[in-house]
Protein backbone atom coordinates (compact mmCIF):
# COMPACT_ATOMS: atom_id res chain seq x y z
CA UNK A 1 0.00 0.00 0.00
CA UNK A 2 0.95 3.60 -0.44
CA UNK A 3 1.86 6.14 2.17
CA UNK A 4 -0.63 7.13 4.82
CA UNK A 5 -3.63 8.86 3.40
CA UNK A 6 -4.86 11.90 5.24
CA UNK A 7 -8.14 12.45 3.42
CA UNK A 8 -11.24 12.49 5.59
CA UNK A 9 -12.92 9.77 3.55
CA UNK A 10 -10.92 6.60 3.61
CA UNK A 11 -12.12 4.86 0.53
CA UNK A 12 -10.94 3.72 -2.87
CA UNK A 13 -7.60 5.22 -3.70
CA UNK A 14 -7.76 7.55 -6.69
CA UNK A 15 -6.85 6.10 -10.04
CA UNK A 16 -3.37 7.53 -10.35
CA UNK A 17 -1.90 6.63 -7.00
CA UNK A 18 1.29 8.45 -7.82
CA UNK A 19 -0.40 11.81 -8.19
CA UNK A 20 -2.25 12.97 -5.11
CA UNK A 21 -1.99 16.69 -5.32
CA UNK A 22 -4.75 18.88 -3.94
CA UNK A 23 -5.77 20.01 -7.41
CA UNK A 24 -6.27 16.46 -8.51
CA UNK A 25 -8.37 15.67 -5.49
CA UNK A 26 -10.49 18.71 -6.14
CA UNK A 27 -11.03 17.67 -9.71
CA UNK A 28 -11.95 14.15 -8.56
CA UNK A 29 -14.53 15.51 -6.19
CA UNK A 30 -16.01 17.65 -8.93
CA UNK A 31 -16.16 14.79 -11.43
CA UNK A 32 -17.68 12.43 -8.88
CA UNK A 33 -20.38 14.87 -7.91
CA UNK A 34 -21.09 15.55 -11.56
CA UNK A 35 -21.53 11.82 -12.16
CA UNK A 36 -23.80 11.48 -9.13
CA UNK A 37 -25.84 14.53 -10.00
CA UNK A 38 -28.51 12.90 -12.21
CA UNK A 39 -29.16 10.24 -9.58
CA UNK A 40 -29.36 12.83 -6.82
CA UNK A 41 -31.71 15.05 -8.81
CA UNK A 42 -34.06 12.15 -9.50
CA UNK A 43 -33.99 10.96 -5.90
CA UNK A 44 -34.60 14.43 -4.56
CA UNK A 45 -37.31 15.23 -7.07
CA UNK A 46 -39.21 11.98 -7.01
CA UNK A 47 -38.48 10.75 -3.49
CA UNK A 48 -37.38 13.65 -1.32
CA UNK A 49 -39.99 16.07 -2.54
CA UNK A 50 -42.88 13.56 -2.31
CA UNK A 51 -41.74 12.77 1.21
CA UNK A 52 -41.93 16.47 2.04
CA UNK A 53 -45.32 16.77 0.30
CA UNK A 54 -46.60 13.79 2.26
CA UNK A 55 -45.61 15.37 5.56
CA UNK A 56 -47.21 18.70 4.61
CA UNK A 57 -50.30 16.89 3.40
CA UNK A 58 -50.65 15.09 6.70
CA UNK A 59 -51.08 18.47 8.43
CA UNK A 60 -53.76 19.60 5.99
CA UNK A 61 -57.19 18.35 5.10
CA UNK A 62 -57.19 17.37 1.47
CA UNK A 63 -60.39 15.94 0.04
CA UNK A 64 -61.78 15.29 -3.41
CA UNK A 65 -62.81 18.95 -3.78
CA UNK A 66 -59.23 20.21 -3.49
CA UNK A 67 -58.05 17.45 -5.80
CA UNK A 68 -60.31 18.66 -8.61
CA UNK A 69 -60.12 22.40 -8.02
CA UNK A 70 -56.39 22.43 -7.37
CA UNK A 71 -56.97 24.75 -4.42
CA UNK A 72 -54.58 24.60 -1.48
CA UNK A 73 -56.12 22.30 1.11
CA UNK A 74 -57.07 23.94 4.40
CA UNK A 75 -54.61 23.65 7.27
CA UNK A 76 -55.60 21.07 9.84
CA UNK A 77 -52.76 21.10 12.33
CA UNK A 78 -52.39 17.78 14.07
CA UNK A 79 -56.04 16.82 13.52
CA UNK A 80 -55.21 13.88 11.23
CA UNK A 81 -52.75 12.46 13.73
CA UNK A 82 -55.15 13.02 16.60
CA UNK A 83 -57.83 11.24 14.62
CA UNK A 84 -55.60 8.24 13.98
CA UNK A 85 -54.09 8.02 17.44
CA UNK A 86 -57.47 8.17 19.19
CA UNK A 87 -59.04 5.62 16.86
CA UNK A 88 -59.29 2.06 18.12
CA UNK A 89 -59.53 0.79 14.54
CA UNK A 90 -56.17 2.36 13.77
CA UNK A 91 -54.52 0.87 16.87
CA UNK A 92 -56.01 -2.49 16.01
CA UNK A 93 -54.36 -2.28 12.60
CA UNK A 94 -51.03 -1.27 14.11
CA UNK A 95 -51.21 -4.22 16.50
CA UNK A 96 -52.25 -6.61 13.72
CA UNK A 97 -49.48 -5.46 11.37
CA UNK A 98 -46.91 -5.78 14.15
CA UNK A 99 -48.18 -9.20 15.25
CA UNK A 100 -48.20 -10.45 11.68
CA UNK A 101 -44.64 -9.19 11.20
CA UNK A 102 -43.36 -10.91 14.34
CA UNK A 103 -45.07 -14.21 13.57
CA UNK A 104 -44.27 -14.33 9.86
CA UNK A 105 -40.64 -13.26 10.26
CA UNK A 106 -40.05 -15.73 13.10
CA UNK A 107 -41.57 -18.54 11.11
CA UNK A 108 -39.83 -17.79 7.85
CA UNK A 109 -36.39 -17.14 9.33
CA UNK A 110 -36.59 -20.29 11.45
CA UNK A 111 -37.80 -22.32 8.50
CA UNK A 112 -35.19 -20.77 6.22
CA UNK A 113 -32.41 -21.61 8.67
CA UNK A 114 -33.76 -25.12 9.14
CA UNK A 115 -33.89 -25.71 5.40
CA UNK A 116 -30.41 -24.28 4.95
CA UNK A 117 -29.10 -26.69 7.60
CA UNK A 118 -31.06 -29.56 6.09
CA UNK A 119 -29.57 -28.86 2.68
CA UNK A 120 -26.13 -29.65 4.08
CA UNK A 121 -27.23 -33.09 5.19
CA UNK A 122 -29.07 -34.35 2.13
CA UNK A 123 -27.86 -36.16 -0.96
CA UNK A 124 -26.61 -33.90 -3.76
CA UNK A 125 -29.57 -34.79 -5.99
CA UNK A 126 -32.07 -34.03 -3.25
CA UNK A 127 -30.32 -30.71 -2.70
CA UNK A 128 -30.66 -29.81 -6.37
CA UNK A 129 -34.35 -30.72 -6.27
CA UNK A 130 -34.85 -28.47 -3.23
CA UNK A 131 -32.99 -25.63 -4.96
CA UNK A 132 -35.03 -25.94 -8.15
CA UNK A 133 -38.31 -25.99 -6.24
CA UNK A 134 -37.29 -22.89 -4.27
CA UNK A 135 -36.09 -21.07 -7.38
CA UNK A 136 -39.47 -21.44 -9.03
CA UNK A 137 -41.26 -20.17 -5.95
CA UNK A 138 -38.86 -17.25 -5.66
CA UNK A 139 -39.25 -16.34 -9.31
CA UNK A 140 -43.03 -16.22 -9.11
CA UNK A 141 -44.45 -12.67 -9.08
CA UNK A 142 -46.12 -11.83 -5.75
CA UNK A 143 -49.49 -11.29 -7.35
CA UNK A 144 -49.35 -14.62 -9.16
CA UNK A 145 -48.39 -16.39 -5.94
CA UNK A 146 -51.34 -14.74 -4.23
CA UNK A 147 -53.63 -15.83 -7.06
CA UNK A 148 -52.36 -19.38 -6.69
CA UNK A 149 -53.20 -19.38 -2.98
CA UNK A 150 -56.56 -17.80 -3.66
CA UNK A 151 -57.34 -20.71 -5.93
CA UNK A 152 -55.91 -23.35 -3.58
CA UNK A 153 -58.15 -22.09 -0.78
CA UNK A 154 -61.25 -21.52 -2.89
CA UNK A 155 -64.26 -22.68 -0.90
CA UNK A 156 -66.00 -24.57 -3.71
CA UNK A 157 -63.32 -26.16 -5.86
CA UNK A 158 -60.12 -25.46 -3.94
CA UNK A 159 -57.82 -28.42 -3.58
CA UNK A 160 -57.07 -27.56 0.05
CA UNK A 161 -60.64 -28.21 1.12
CA UNK A 162 -60.62 -31.41 -0.90
CA UNK A 163 -57.48 -32.67 0.84
CA UNK A 164 -58.75 -31.58 4.28
CA UNK A 165 -62.06 -33.32 3.72
CA UNK A 166 -60.23 -36.54 2.88
CA UNK A 167 -58.09 -36.32 6.00
CA UNK A 168 -60.32 -34.61 8.58
CA UNK A 169 -63.83 -35.31 7.34
CA UNK A 170 -66.56 -33.85 5.18
CA UNK A 171 -67.14 -30.72 7.24
CA UNK A 172 -64.20 -29.21 5.36
CA UNK A 173 -66.05 -29.33 2.04
CA UNK A 174 -67.08 -25.79 1.03
CA UNK A 175 -65.15 -24.39 3.95
CA UNK A 176 -64.59 -20.64 3.66
CA UNK A 177 -61.11 -19.78 4.81
CA UNK A 178 -61.67 -16.07 5.24
CA UNK A 179 -64.75 -16.03 7.46
CA UNK A 180 -62.72 -16.63 10.58
CA UNK A 181 -59.91 -14.03 10.59
CA UNK A 182 -57.53 -16.42 12.37
CA UNK A 183 -57.87 -18.89 9.53
CA UNK A 184 -57.67 -16.14 6.94
CA UNK A 185 -54.50 -14.78 8.47
CA UNK A 186 -53.12 -18.30 8.66
CA UNK A 187 -53.54 -18.51 4.88
CA UNK A 188 -51.92 -15.11 4.34
CA UNK A 189 -49.06 -15.99 6.70
CA UNK A 190 -48.51 -19.33 4.98
CA UNK A 191 -48.37 -17.55 1.64
CA UNK A 192 -45.85 -15.00 2.91
CA UNK A 193 -43.68 -17.60 4.64
CA UNK A 194 -43.81 -19.94 1.65
CA UNK A 195 -42.80 -17.13 -0.68
CA UNK A 196 -40.11 -15.89 1.71
CA UNK A 197 -38.35 -19.18 2.42
CA UNK A 198 -36.36 -19.38 -0.86
CA UNK A 199 -34.54 -16.09 -0.32
CA UNK A 200 -33.82 -16.92 3.32
CA UNK A 201 -32.83 -20.57 2.85
CA UNK A 202 -30.62 -19.89 -0.16
CA UNK A 203 -28.86 -16.88 1.40
CA UNK A 204 -28.33 -18.69 4.69
CA UNK A 205 -27.12 -21.81 2.94
CA UNK A 206 -24.56 -19.66 1.12
CA UNK A 207 -23.59 -18.27 4.53
CA UNK A 208 -23.18 -21.75 5.98
CA UNK A 209 -20.50 -22.58 3.44
CA UNK A 210 -18.38 -19.91 5.15
CA UNK A 211 -18.31 -21.82 8.43
CA UNK A 212 -14.81 -23.28 8.64
CA UNK A 213 -14.91 -27.07 8.64
CA UNK A 214 -11.87 -27.28 10.93
CA UNK A 215 -13.71 -25.47 13.71
CA UNK A 216 -16.64 -27.84 13.50
CA UNK A 217 -14.41 -30.88 13.39
CA UNK A 218 -12.37 -29.63 16.33
CA UNK A 219 -15.56 -29.16 18.33
CA UNK A 220 -16.74 -32.65 17.44
CA UNK A 221 -13.41 -34.12 18.46
CA UNK A 222 -13.67 -32.25 21.75
CA UNK A 223 -16.99 -33.97 22.33
CA UNK A 224 -19.45 -31.21 21.50
CA UNK A 225 -22.93 -32.40 20.57
CA UNK A 226 -24.50 -31.36 17.27
CA UNK A 227 -26.65 -28.88 19.13
CA UNK A 228 -23.65 -27.36 20.91
CA UNK A 229 -21.76 -27.07 17.66
CA UNK A 230 -24.71 -25.32 16.06
CA UNK A 231 -25.19 -22.94 18.97
CA UNK A 232 -21.61 -22.10 19.73
CA UNK A 233 -19.93 -22.24 16.34
CA UNK A 234 -22.31 -22.15 13.39
CA UNK A 235 -24.78 -19.56 14.62
CA UNK A 236 -22.22 -17.01 15.88
CA UNK A 237 -20.45 -17.11 12.50
CA UNK A 238 -23.78 -16.82 10.71
CA UNK A 239 -25.00 -13.98 12.91
CA UNK A 240 -24.20 -10.95 10.70
CA UNK A 241 -25.99 -12.53 7.75
CA UNK A 242 -28.84 -13.71 9.94
CA UNK A 243 -29.28 -10.17 11.23
CA UNK A 244 -29.38 -8.71 7.72
CA UNK A 245 -31.93 -11.16 6.33
CA UNK A 246 -34.10 -10.87 9.43
CA UNK A 247 -34.08 -7.08 9.21
CA UNK A 248 -34.97 -7.19 5.52
CA UNK A 249 -37.80 -9.62 6.26
CA UNK A 250 -39.14 -7.31 8.96
CA UNK A 251 -39.11 -4.35 6.58
CA UNK A 252 -40.82 -6.32 3.80
CA UNK A 253 -43.44 -8.04 5.92
CA UNK A 254 -44.34 -4.92 7.88
CA UNK A 255 -45.27 -3.34 4.56
CA UNK A 256 -47.60 -6.21 3.66
CA UNK A 257 -49.91 -5.14 0.85
CA UNK A 258 -50.05 -7.44 -2.17
CA UNK A 259 -51.00 -10.63 -0.38
CA UNK A 260 -53.92 -9.46 1.73
CA UNK A 261 -55.01 -7.13 -1.06
CA UNK A 262 -55.19 -9.86 -3.70
CA UNK A 263 -56.57 -12.58 -1.43
CA UNK A 264 -59.39 -10.25 -0.41
CA UNK A 265 -60.18 -9.21 -3.99
CA UNK A 266 -58.85 -5.63 -3.69
CA UNK A 267 -61.32 -4.86 -0.90
CA UNK A 268 -59.85 -6.18 2.34
CA UNK A 269 -62.39 -6.25 5.16
CA UNK A 270 -61.39 -4.23 8.25
CA UNK A 271 -59.99 -7.33 9.89
CA UNK A 272 -57.69 -7.98 6.91
CA UNK A 273 -56.28 -4.45 6.74
CA UNK A 274 -52.63 -3.73 7.43
CA UNK A 275 -51.05 -0.30 7.77
CA UNK A 276 -50.15 -0.22 4.08
CA UNK A 277 -53.58 -1.21 2.78
CA UNK A 278 -55.33 0.98 5.34
CA UNK A 279 -53.46 4.11 4.33
CA UNK A 280 -54.12 3.27 0.68
CA UNK A 281 -57.82 2.64 1.24
CA UNK A 282 -58.26 5.88 3.19
CA UNK A 283 -56.54 7.89 0.45
CA UNK A 284 -57.73 6.32 -2.76
CA UNK A 285 -60.87 4.55 -1.63
CA UNK A 286 -62.35 7.28 0.54
CA UNK A 287 -60.45 10.28 -0.88
CA UNK A 288 -59.10 11.15 2.58
CA UNK A 289 -55.69 12.03 1.18
CA UNK A 290 -54.46 13.80 4.29
CA UNK A 291 -55.56 11.07 6.65
CA UNK A 292 -53.89 8.47 4.44
CA UNK A 293 -50.71 10.56 4.46
CA UNK A 294 -50.74 10.83 8.25
CA UNK A 295 -51.00 7.04 8.49
CA UNK A 296 -48.12 6.68 6.03
CA UNK A 297 -46.00 9.08 8.08
CA UNK A 298 -46.71 7.08 11.23
CA UNK A 299 -45.85 3.86 9.37
CA UNK A 300 -42.51 5.25 8.23
CA UNK A 301 -41.76 6.47 11.75
CA UNK A 302 -42.53 3.03 13.14
CA UNK A 303 -40.12 1.52 10.60
CA UNK A 304 -37.37 4.06 11.16
CA UNK A 305 -35.68 2.18 13.97
CA UNK A 306 -35.41 -1.00 11.93
CA UNK A 307 -34.10 0.90 8.92
CA UNK A 308 -31.41 2.69 10.92
CA UNK A 309 -30.42 -0.65 12.40
CA UNK A 310 -30.14 -2.20 8.93
CA UNK A 311 -27.95 0.60 7.58
CA UNK A 312 -25.70 0.55 10.64
CA UNK A 313 -25.37 -3.20 10.23
CA UNK A 314 -24.38 -2.80 6.58
CA UNK A 315 -21.68 -0.35 7.60
CA UNK A 316 -20.54 -2.56 10.45
CA UNK A 317 -19.98 -5.69 8.41
CA UNK A 318 -17.89 -3.63 6.02
CA UNK A 319 -20.15 -3.98 3.00
CA UNK A 320 -19.95 -0.21 2.77
CA UNK A 321 -16.31 0.66 2.50
Amino acid at each position, binding site marked *: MQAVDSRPVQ*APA*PLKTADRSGARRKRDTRTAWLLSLPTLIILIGMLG*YPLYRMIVLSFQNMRLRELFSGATPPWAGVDQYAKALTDDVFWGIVARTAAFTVVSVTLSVTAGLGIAL*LMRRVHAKVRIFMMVAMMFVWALPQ*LVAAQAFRWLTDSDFGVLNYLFSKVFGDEWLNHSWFVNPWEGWAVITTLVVWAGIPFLAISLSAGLTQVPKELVEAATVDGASSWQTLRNITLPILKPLLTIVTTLSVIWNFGLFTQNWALRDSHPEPVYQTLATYSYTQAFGRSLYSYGSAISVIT*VLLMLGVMVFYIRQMFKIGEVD
Partner: protein
Amino acid sequence: MARHDDGVVTVGRSRIGTVFANTGGILFGLVMIFPVYWVLNTAFKPDAEVRSFTPTFWPENPTLDNFRSALGEQHFLPSMVNGLVITAMAVAAALVVGFLAALAIARFAFYGRKAIILVVLAVQLVPFLALLIPLFLMLQGVNLTNTLVGVALVYLVLLLPYTVWTLRGFISGIPRELDEAAMIDGCTRAQVFWRIILPLTGPGLVATSVYGFIQAWNEFIIINTLNDPNHQNLMAWLLYNQTERGTAWGPLMAGAIITSIPVVVFFLIIQRNIATGLTAGAVKG
Protein backbone atom coordinates in the same frame (compact mmCIF):
# COMPACT_ATOMS: atom_id res chain seq x y z
CA MET B 1 -32.21 -34.19 20.57
CA ALA B 2 -32.44 -34.55 16.86
CA ARG B 3 -29.19 -35.48 15.29
CA HIS B 4 -30.28 -34.88 11.75
CA ASP B 5 -31.02 -31.19 11.97
CA ASP B 6 -27.67 -29.64 12.66
CA GLY B 7 -25.82 -27.83 10.01
CA VAL B 8 -22.46 -29.32 9.59
CA VAL B 9 -21.11 -32.06 7.46
CA THR B 10 -18.88 -34.30 9.46
CA VAL B 11 -17.74 -37.85 9.25
CA GLY B 12 -19.61 -40.73 10.77
CA ARG B 13 -23.23 -39.71 10.44
CA SER B 14 -25.93 -42.20 11.31
CA ARG B 15 -27.56 -43.70 8.26
CA ILE B 16 -31.01 -43.29 9.71
CA GLY B 17 -30.34 -39.59 10.10
CA THR B 18 -29.40 -39.35 6.44
CA VAL B 19 -32.54 -41.17 5.37
CA PHE B 20 -34.62 -38.80 7.49
CA ALA B 21 -32.85 -35.80 6.03
CA ASN B 22 -33.34 -36.95 2.45
CA THR B 23 -37.00 -37.75 3.00
CA GLY B 24 -37.49 -34.36 4.65
CA GLY B 25 -35.74 -32.61 1.80
CA ILE B 26 -37.87 -34.30 -0.83
CA LEU B 27 -41.08 -33.61 1.09
CA PHE B 28 -40.09 -29.98 1.51
CA GLY B 29 -39.42 -29.61 -2.22
CA LEU B 30 -42.75 -31.19 -3.08
CA VAL B 31 -44.70 -28.94 -0.72
CA MET B 32 -42.91 -25.86 -2.04
CA ILE B 33 -43.54 -26.65 -5.67
CA PHE B 34 -47.12 -27.84 -5.25
CA PRO B 35 -48.87 -24.43 -5.60
CA VAL B 36 -46.84 -23.75 -8.75
CA TYR B 37 -47.75 -27.16 -10.11
CA TRP B 38 -51.39 -26.58 -9.27
CA VAL B 39 -51.48 -23.36 -11.28
CA LEU B 40 -50.06 -25.21 -14.30
CA ASN B 41 -52.38 -28.16 -13.78
CA THR B 42 -55.45 -25.93 -13.63
CA ALA B 43 -54.49 -23.87 -16.65
CA PHE B 44 -54.51 -26.93 -18.90
CA LYS B 45 -57.81 -28.33 -17.64
CA PRO B 46 -61.15 -27.85 -19.38
CA ASP B 47 -63.71 -25.96 -17.31
CA ALA B 48 -65.58 -29.12 -16.31
CA GLU B 49 -62.46 -30.52 -14.69
CA VAL B 50 -61.63 -27.23 -12.99
CA ARG B 51 -65.07 -26.98 -11.44
CA SER B 52 -65.05 -30.45 -10.03
CA PHE B 53 -65.49 -31.40 -6.40
CA THR B 54 -62.93 -34.16 -6.78
CA PRO B 55 -60.01 -32.38 -8.41
CA THR B 56 -57.71 -34.52 -10.52
CA PHE B 57 -54.00 -34.15 -9.98
CA TRP B 58 -53.27 -33.87 -13.69
CA PRO B 59 -55.40 -32.66 -16.61
CA GLU B 60 -57.23 -35.69 -18.01
CA ASN B 61 -58.28 -33.87 -21.18
CA PRO B 62 -55.57 -31.26 -21.60
CA THR B 63 -56.69 -28.19 -23.50
CA LEU B 64 -55.35 -24.78 -24.49
CA ASP B 65 -58.78 -23.14 -24.27
CA ASN B 66 -57.87 -21.26 -21.10
CA PHE B 67 -54.87 -19.69 -22.78
CA ARG B 68 -56.95 -18.73 -25.80
CA SER B 69 -59.51 -17.15 -23.52
CA ALA B 70 -56.87 -15.18 -21.61
CA LEU B 71 -55.05 -14.01 -24.73
CA GLY B 72 -58.31 -13.03 -26.37
CA GLU B 73 -59.35 -10.77 -23.50
CA GLN B 74 -59.64 -7.25 -24.91
CA HIS B 75 -57.15 -5.59 -22.57
CA PHE B 76 -54.51 -8.32 -22.75
CA LEU B 77 -52.51 -7.18 -25.76
CA PRO B 78 -52.53 -3.41 -25.02
CA SER B 79 -51.54 -4.14 -21.43
CA MET B 80 -48.66 -6.28 -22.53
CA VAL B 81 -47.39 -3.61 -24.93
CA ASN B 82 -47.80 -0.92 -22.26
CA GLY B 83 -45.91 -3.02 -19.76
CA LEU B 84 -43.05 -3.57 -22.17
CA VAL B 85 -42.81 0.12 -23.08
CA ILE B 86 -42.88 1.30 -19.46
CA THR B 87 -40.39 -1.33 -18.37
CA ALA B 88 -38.00 -0.54 -21.22
CA MET B 89 -38.09 3.18 -20.47
CA ALA B 90 -37.59 2.76 -16.74
CA VAL B 91 -34.82 0.17 -17.02
CA ALA B 92 -32.89 2.06 -19.70
CA ALA B 93 -33.04 5.32 -17.76
CA ALA B 94 -32.10 3.65 -14.47
CA LEU B 95 -29.16 1.93 -16.11
CA VAL B 96 -27.68 5.08 -17.64
CA VAL B 97 -28.25 7.32 -14.64
CA GLY B 98 -27.36 4.66 -12.10
CA PHE B 99 -24.16 3.65 -13.85
CA LEU B 100 -22.74 7.16 -13.57
CA ALA B 101 -23.42 7.33 -9.85
CA ALA B 102 -22.08 3.82 -9.34
CA LEU B 103 -18.89 4.83 -11.12
CA ALA B 104 -18.50 7.81 -8.83
CA ILE B 105 -18.97 5.77 -5.68
CA ALA B 106 -16.82 2.85 -6.78
CA ARG B 107 -13.90 4.64 -8.40
CA PHE B 108 -13.57 8.08 -6.83
CA ALA B 109 -12.56 9.13 -3.37
CA PHE B 110 -14.38 12.37 -2.78
CA TYR B 111 -15.94 14.48 -0.13
CA GLY B 112 -19.55 13.45 0.36
CA ARG B 113 -19.13 9.90 -0.88
CA LYS B 114 -20.33 8.34 2.37
CA ALA B 115 -23.35 10.63 2.37
CA ILE B 116 -24.34 9.47 -1.11
CA ILE B 117 -23.94 5.83 -0.10
CA LEU B 118 -26.08 6.46 2.93
CA VAL B 119 -28.81 8.06 0.82
CA VAL B 120 -28.78 5.21 -1.71
CA LEU B 121 -29.00 2.60 1.05
CA ALA B 122 -31.67 4.45 2.98
CA VAL B 123 -34.04 5.11 0.10
CA GLN B 124 -34.04 1.42 -0.74
CA LEU B 125 -35.84 0.87 2.53
CA VAL B 126 -38.49 3.59 2.20
CA PRO B 127 -41.86 1.87 1.86
CA PHE B 128 -42.59 3.16 -1.58
CA LEU B 129 -46.34 2.75 -1.35
CA ALA B 130 -46.32 5.31 1.44
CA LEU B 131 -45.26 7.89 -1.15
CA LEU B 132 -48.00 6.97 -3.56
CA ILE B 133 -50.38 9.69 -2.36
CA PRO B 134 -48.01 12.65 -2.98
CA LEU B 135 -46.69 11.03 -6.17
CA PHE B 136 -50.23 10.70 -7.46
CA LEU B 137 -50.95 14.36 -6.67
CA MET B 138 -47.67 15.50 -8.22
CA LEU B 139 -48.18 13.57 -11.43
CA GLN B 140 -51.75 14.74 -11.66
CA GLY B 141 -50.57 18.32 -11.26
CA VAL B 142 -48.43 18.01 -14.38
CA ASN B 143 -50.96 15.89 -16.31
CA LEU B 144 -48.86 12.75 -16.24
CA THR B 145 -51.49 10.43 -14.83
CA ASN B 146 -52.92 8.07 -17.44
CA THR B 147 -49.64 8.18 -19.35
CA LEU B 148 -46.94 5.59 -19.72
CA VAL B 149 -44.20 8.16 -19.08
CA GLY B 150 -45.59 9.03 -15.67
CA VAL B 151 -45.48 5.44 -14.50
CA ALA B 152 -42.05 4.95 -16.06
CA LEU B 153 -40.79 7.93 -14.04
CA VAL B 154 -42.05 6.41 -10.82
CA TYR B 155 -40.55 3.03 -11.72
CA LEU B 156 -37.26 4.73 -12.47
CA VAL B 157 -37.08 5.95 -8.88
CA LEU B 158 -38.09 2.52 -7.71
CA LEU B 159 -35.21 0.88 -9.61
CA LEU B 160 -32.51 3.51 -9.25
CA PRO B 161 -31.16 2.81 -5.74
CA TYR B 162 -30.81 -0.91 -6.39
CA THR B 163 -29.22 -0.23 -9.77
CA VAL B 164 -26.62 2.12 -8.28
CA TRP B 165 -25.89 -0.27 -5.46
CA THR B 166 -25.50 -3.37 -7.61
CA LEU B 167 -23.45 -1.69 -10.33
CA ARG B 168 -21.20 -0.23 -7.66
CA GLY B 169 -20.46 -3.80 -6.60
CA PHE B 170 -19.66 -4.88 -10.14
CA ILE B 171 -17.40 -1.90 -10.79
CA SER B 172 -15.56 -2.40 -7.49
CA GLY B 173 -14.95 -5.96 -8.60
CA ILE B 174 -12.81 -4.81 -11.50
CA PRO B 175 -9.22 -4.69 -10.27
CA ARG B 176 -8.04 -1.12 -9.93
CA GLU B 177 -4.67 -2.20 -11.27
CA LEU B 178 -6.25 -2.50 -14.72
CA ASP B 179 -7.24 1.17 -14.64
CA GLU B 180 -3.81 2.14 -13.42
CA ALA B 181 -1.99 0.09 -16.03
CA ALA B 182 -4.07 1.65 -18.77
CA MET B 183 -3.42 5.13 -17.47
CA ILE B 184 0.28 4.52 -17.26
CA ASP B 185 0.09 3.42 -20.89
CA GLY B 186 -1.40 6.81 -21.66
CA CYS B 187 -5.16 6.29 -21.48
CA THR B 188 -7.27 9.20 -20.30
CA ARG B 189 -9.96 8.67 -17.69
CA ALA B 190 -12.61 8.68 -20.39
CA GLN B 191 -10.71 6.01 -22.30
CA VAL B 192 -10.35 3.91 -19.20
CA PHE B 193 -14.11 4.11 -18.83
CA TRP B 194 -14.91 3.18 -22.43
CA ARG B 195 -12.25 0.53 -22.93
CA ILE B 196 -12.02 -1.13 -19.54
CA ILE B 197 -14.79 -0.42 -17.09
CA LEU B 198 -17.75 -0.49 -19.46
CA PRO B 199 -16.86 -3.75 -21.23
CA LEU B 200 -15.98 -5.48 -17.97
CA THR B 201 -19.22 -4.37 -16.32
CA GLY B 202 -21.18 -5.96 -19.17
CA PRO B 203 -22.46 -8.96 -17.20
CA GLY B 204 -23.35 -6.64 -14.33
CA LEU B 205 -25.33 -4.38 -16.65
CA VAL B 206 -27.23 -7.38 -17.96
CA ALA B 207 -27.97 -8.72 -14.48
CA THR B 208 -29.04 -5.32 -13.21
CA SER B 209 -31.32 -4.59 -16.13
CA VAL B 210 -32.91 -8.02 -15.90
CA TYR B 211 -33.57 -7.46 -12.21
CA GLY B 212 -35.00 -4.05 -13.05
CA PHE B 213 -37.20 -5.65 -15.66
CA ILE B 214 -38.55 -8.08 -13.08
CA GLN B 215 -39.28 -5.31 -10.59
CA ALA B 216 -41.05 -3.11 -13.11
CA TRP B 217 -42.93 -5.99 -14.72
CA ASN B 218 -44.23 -7.26 -11.38
CA GLU B 219 -45.49 -3.90 -10.16
CA PHE B 220 -49.23 -3.34 -10.30
CA ILE B 221 -50.36 -1.16 -7.39
CA ILE B 222 -48.75 2.07 -8.58
CA ILE B 223 -49.88 1.72 -12.17
CA ASN B 224 -53.33 0.65 -11.05
CA THR B 225 -53.61 3.84 -8.99
CA LEU B 226 -52.14 6.28 -11.49
CA ASN B 227 -53.69 5.05 -14.72
CA ASP B 228 -57.08 4.21 -16.22
CA PRO B 229 -57.81 0.70 -17.57
CA ASN B 230 -56.40 1.63 -20.97
CA HIS B 231 -52.94 2.33 -19.59
CA GLN B 232 -52.27 -0.70 -17.44
CA ASN B 233 -49.55 -3.33 -17.57
CA LEU B 234 -50.04 -7.09 -17.57
CA MET B 235 -49.80 -7.52 -13.83
CA ALA B 236 -52.50 -4.93 -13.25
CA TRP B 237 -54.50 -6.63 -15.98
CA LEU B 238 -54.23 -9.84 -13.98
CA LEU B 239 -55.61 -8.17 -10.87
CA TYR B 240 -58.38 -6.54 -12.87
CA ASN B 241 -59.21 -9.92 -14.37
CA GLN B 242 -59.40 -11.42 -10.90
CA THR B 243 -62.05 -8.93 -9.82
CA GLU B 244 -63.94 -9.11 -13.09
CA ARG B 245 -63.97 -12.86 -13.60
CA GLY B 246 -63.33 -14.00 -10.06
CA THR B 247 -64.27 -17.64 -10.50
CA ALA B 248 -63.12 -18.37 -14.05
CA TRP B 249 -60.18 -20.19 -12.56
CA GLY B 250 -58.90 -21.81 -15.75
CA PRO B 251 -58.40 -18.60 -17.74
CA LEU B 252 -57.17 -16.83 -14.61
CA MET B 253 -54.43 -19.38 -14.05
CA ALA B 254 -53.54 -19.33 -17.76
CA GLY B 255 -53.28 -15.54 -17.56
CA ALA B 256 -51.10 -15.85 -14.47
CA ILE B 257 -48.76 -18.20 -16.33
CA ILE B 258 -48.50 -15.96 -19.39
CA THR B 259 -47.78 -12.97 -17.18
CA SER B 260 -45.13 -14.87 -15.21
CA ILE B 261 -43.20 -16.47 -18.04
CA PRO B 262 -40.83 -13.61 -18.89
CA VAL B 263 -40.13 -12.94 -15.23
CA VAL B 264 -39.54 -16.56 -14.29
CA VAL B 265 -37.24 -17.15 -17.25
CA PHE B 266 -35.22 -14.02 -16.54
CA PHE B 267 -35.13 -14.75 -12.86
CA LEU B 268 -33.75 -18.22 -13.31
CA ILE B 269 -31.01 -16.81 -15.54
CA ILE B 270 -29.74 -14.25 -13.06
CA GLN B 271 -30.77 -15.76 -9.72
CA ARG B 272 -27.18 -15.97 -8.52
CA ASN B 273 -26.77 -12.21 -8.72
CA ILE B 274 -29.98 -11.45 -6.89
CA ALA B 275 -29.07 -13.48 -3.86
CA THR B 276 -25.62 -11.97 -3.60
CA GLY B 277 -26.80 -8.45 -4.39
CA LEU B 278 -29.02 -8.30 -1.35
CA THR B 279 -26.62 -9.74 1.16
CA ALA B 280 -23.25 -9.40 -0.53
CA GLY B 281 -21.24 -8.08 2.38
CA ALA B 282 -22.37 -10.63 4.87
CA VAL B 283 -21.13 -13.55 2.82
CA LYS B 284 -17.51 -13.23 2.02
CA GLY B 285 -16.07 -15.15 -0.84
